[in-house]
């Protein structure tokens, strides 16, 4: 898709409770996508059955998982109904898995074209979750969500990237499920190729899990960032092409992330400073790597 993002959000937040806005957003998005015959699963937060999270857990946005081939259409449809692109896929996380949009009344939605750590491929992961999906009533409307088992699995896989709230969520699921249900969940994690994320999130044995994936999720779980994370991703890349893509994606400055870090709109001077710092760090890393190789 042609990516367009503003990186901006309204200065004045709407006066309605965040929970109300998110619940209404779930209902409206389900309606709009359903009418357009686009399959989309609502993940996490209020799109889970009671008991998946600890009581009183709050959610701040809508998370959608769509088939990768539908991602552009979903964003175009939401854009035409008041959701303004804030961050494109390439401006999102290191996985480039989600684009973020903002609606003046209904708040944020993250459109995921893949769910990191889940499935042998984004297409297979979506198809598997969709094949067993169910509906949850939110704001009086039926909203498509994964099966109860997959809802919990998604929370656990996500926890591998979110060590703070995630650890609490994983502990809650583990303690609230009977042993046989937990075992079934583990089995499902392996069936969906989510062993690395499962291991990192739960601390359970990692037999037969892809070691590169394991290294990457462990780094994210430790909240590595910057050059440290780049180094881990370099080591986790399986091919020269993956490494080339990694470098190409690392060099451009992520404007939305920089804005969030600075807490104000990004200026040209900010971009210049950030770009220079990135190139300097990468050049230093490459130099040290080359020197070590020569020794």
């Amino acid at each position, binding site marked *: 898709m042609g990516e367009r993002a503003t990186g901006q959000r309204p200065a004045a937040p709407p006066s309605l409770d965040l929970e109300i806005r998110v619940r209404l957003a779930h209902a409206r998005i389900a*309606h709009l996508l359903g009418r357009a015959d686009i399959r989309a699963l609502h993940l996490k937060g209020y799109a889970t059955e009671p008991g998946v999270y600890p009581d009183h857990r709050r959610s701040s946005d809508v998370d959608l998982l769509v088939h990768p081939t539908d991602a552009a259409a979903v964003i175009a449809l939401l854009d035409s109904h008041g959701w303004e692109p804030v961050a494109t896929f390439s401006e999102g996380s290191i996985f480039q898995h989600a684009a973020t949009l903002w609606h003046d009344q209904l708040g944020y939605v993250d459109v995921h074209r893949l769910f990191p750590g889940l499935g042998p491929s984004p297409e297979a992961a979506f198809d598997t979750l969709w094949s067993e999906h169910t509906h949850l*009533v939110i*704001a*009086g*409307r039926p909203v498509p969500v994964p099966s109860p088992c997959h809802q919990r699995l998604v929370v656990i896989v996500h926890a591998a990237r979110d060590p703070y709230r995630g650890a609490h969520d994983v502990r809650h699921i583990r303690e609230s499920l009977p042993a046989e249900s937990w075992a079934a969940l583990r089995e499902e994690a392996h069936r969906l190729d989510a062993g690395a994320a499962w291991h990192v999130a739960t601390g359970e044995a990692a037999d037969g899990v892809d070691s590169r994936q394991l290294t990457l999720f462990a780094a994210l779980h430790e909240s590595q960032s910057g050059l440290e994370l780049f180094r881990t991703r370099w080591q986790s890349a399986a091919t020269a092409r993956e490494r080339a893509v990694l470098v190409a994606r690392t060099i451009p400055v992520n404007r939305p992330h920089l804005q969030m870090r600075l807490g104000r709109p990004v200026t040209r001077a900010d971009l210049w400073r950030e770009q220079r710092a990135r190139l300097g760090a990468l050049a230093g890393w490459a130099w040290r790597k080359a020197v070590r190789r020569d020794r």
Partner: protein
Amino acid sequence: MTVETTEGWALAPDIAWARTAGGQAVVMTLEAGQPLLLSASGDVIWDVLVGGRTPDDDLVADPPTPLSTTTITVQVAEAFGLDPADVAADVHAFLEMLEAHGVLVRVRTA
């Protein structure tokens, strides 16, 4: 034999609604996506319109039965402990306001 019909009200087919932590109803048409926060007295009328349903009840699978203006007025008056004649004008104005926002549609009830 003649069958008397009267003005009635039904929820529009494409609406969503929720309740704030303080119990206020927020309604929205799915097309417009503009939430309306109802007043305390509007909440009472809304409760009558949805027939005791909560936002966890599916409006698509089980929509509330359309109600006549008279029925709504009588139930609202009962909730406030007033005479129907005392609330009729306000109730009607509120129903028309919701109609103007696309939340209610006017129907004829037998």
